[in-house]
């Protein structure tokens, strides 16, 4: 069997049942492909064994870029490229540069982090997501298990899902 083609899909109706089901199913040695939920279920990433996202680091680096860009721009423009006497003040003094520096830091951190999020999550306006059961945006929590990744047979996986609180167990095959 090829990867990513034949799936067993468990449908859960309650987030707490799901949170207990995930570790129980994983203990049985079943590899879960992914879980799709209508809202963020807290703790689900931990029981699925996902590593913490590194997006905060990306945000910090983008913010740092904003800070240095803003400072360089202001110091170069007013201090070196075209110095002007304004109210007898120094050409370069840091306090008046603080607001613009702060704003550009926030702007680049926010835009950079969101762009990174969209890229790593492969989100594009013209892309249709691969959906196992589109009730996952309404009120169902959908657990997809790839048959090619698991040694257990389909019926064994189905009965494990059922015994862990799945309301329905379906099959989904992609071409």
């Amino acid at each position, binding site marked *: 069997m090829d990867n990513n083609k034949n799936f067993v899909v468990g449908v859960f109706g309650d987030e707490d049942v799901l949170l207990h089901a995930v570790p129980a199913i994983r203990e049985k040695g079943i590899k879960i492909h992914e879980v799709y939920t209508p809202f963020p279920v807290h703790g689900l990433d931990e029981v699925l064994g996902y590593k913490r996202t590194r997006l905060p680091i990306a945000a910090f680096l983008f913010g740092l870029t904003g800070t240095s860009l803003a400072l360089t721009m202001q110091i170069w423009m007013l201090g070196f490229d075209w110095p002007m006497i304004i109210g007898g003040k120094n050409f370069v003094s840091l306090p008046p540069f603080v607001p613009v520096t702060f704003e550009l830091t926030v702007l680049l951190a926010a835009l950079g982090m969101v762009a990174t999020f969209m890229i790593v999550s492969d989100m594009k306006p013209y892309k249709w997501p691969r959906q196992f059961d589109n009730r996952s945006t*309404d009120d169902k929590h959908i657990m997809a298990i790839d048959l090619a990744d698991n040694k257990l047979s389909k019926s064994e996986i189905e009965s494990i899902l059922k015994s862990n609180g799945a309301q329905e167990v379906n099959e989904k095959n992609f071409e």
Partner: protein
Amino acid sequence: MQVTSAIREPLITGGKTVHDVSEDISRQVEGKPTNLWKMAFGISFVLLAYGFYCVCILLWEGIGVWGLNKTVGWAWDITNFVWWVGIGHAGTLISAILLLFRQKWRMSINRAAEAMTIFAVICAATFPAFHMGRLWLGFYWALPLPNTFGSLWVNFNSPLLWDVFAISTYFTVSLVFWYIGLIPDFAVIRDRAVRSGHKMRATIYNALSFGWDGAAKTWMRYESVALILAGLSTPLVLSVHTIVSFDFATSVIPGWHTTIFPPYFVAGAIFSGFAMVLTLLIVTRKVFKLEDYITIYHIELMNIVIIITGSIVGIAYITEFFVAWYGQVPAEFYAFSNRAFGPYWWAYWCMMTCNVISPQLFWFKKLRTNIAATFVLSIIVNIGMWFERFVIIVTSLHRDYLPSSWSMFYPTMYDVGQYIFTFGLFFTAFFLFAKFFPVINMAEVKSIVKSSSEKKH
């Protein structure tokens, strides 16, 4: 299985299930617009069209069509600018600061409040933009762009330039924050359209949702993005009105030159922003039948924020006056006594009544849980906040240092028209939003159905 807290009032009433949330919120997006909606949209559009006419005359003739004169160089335009920016503070405050404080009552109101923020900031930006006169050259005056004047750069020491950066950053970050929140909800409408066979709607909302899949991994990243955006927006919200207040506070005009301005402006902004959120949401919940999601409890909590910020504003007015007397600078004390007893006394006392006295009525639980009273008071608060900015700007300018320059300000129909233009723009945009976008954050509300929803009887 629903668990209701013994000590907190439920945030969702009517025994809603997760599925009911999708149904109730998607209904107005999927259905045909009601006659009430068409009428409201029509009125806003007429205001927008009339305002557009006034704006065209303004661009053709120049700033001379406004009532400004040599002494009063800032009047309605900057008053309206500060007023709209202030209104634009509630949305990001609700979604960012209340997220960091883990206040779950924000979840039903943050979407509409953020939309209001975005439209209010657009309205605000039109005033300084048109005040520049030659709008099409504005980019060179406002942004550090290479130009043919020998690369004469913008002045980074000027608070007016800080304002450009502060407001455009605030606008962009608020827009991104709002849109990130909308993505999972667009996917809800997409999947409902797929199930009911509306192909066109499914394609449009899929594009709007960026192909959202709702995977646990995506949600993990999404939550991290939302939290960091909240962390970034929190100082941003506070910085925007601080920088707007610098436009005045860094000058040497008596009445403007005060160090109390930044906190006083920020409190006033939150005060007027919450009032506008209440005005809009009281209408929205009625029109779209969302009483189970935006409950009396939500309205009461917002009214409590209004008491707090209104009292801060009241203390600031009194402190300003006290310091003007205690500081014994004749020009400063004159500016303040002229505000209260000079030719603009009516504006000053209107401001005092609307902003200092009227929010204190919300100490009565009967009033702050009464919808009609809240609606009326929320409008009174925004009238008061408009007069606050008018008093600060016009009374400080109209008595110049030379008595021969003393003058008064009289608005023309184009001053009024520009204000009407922004009202038209604001409400047209808000009604379009309310029709085509989900007005309540479904994903967030669904996550609290279990913990904070009223039990089914």
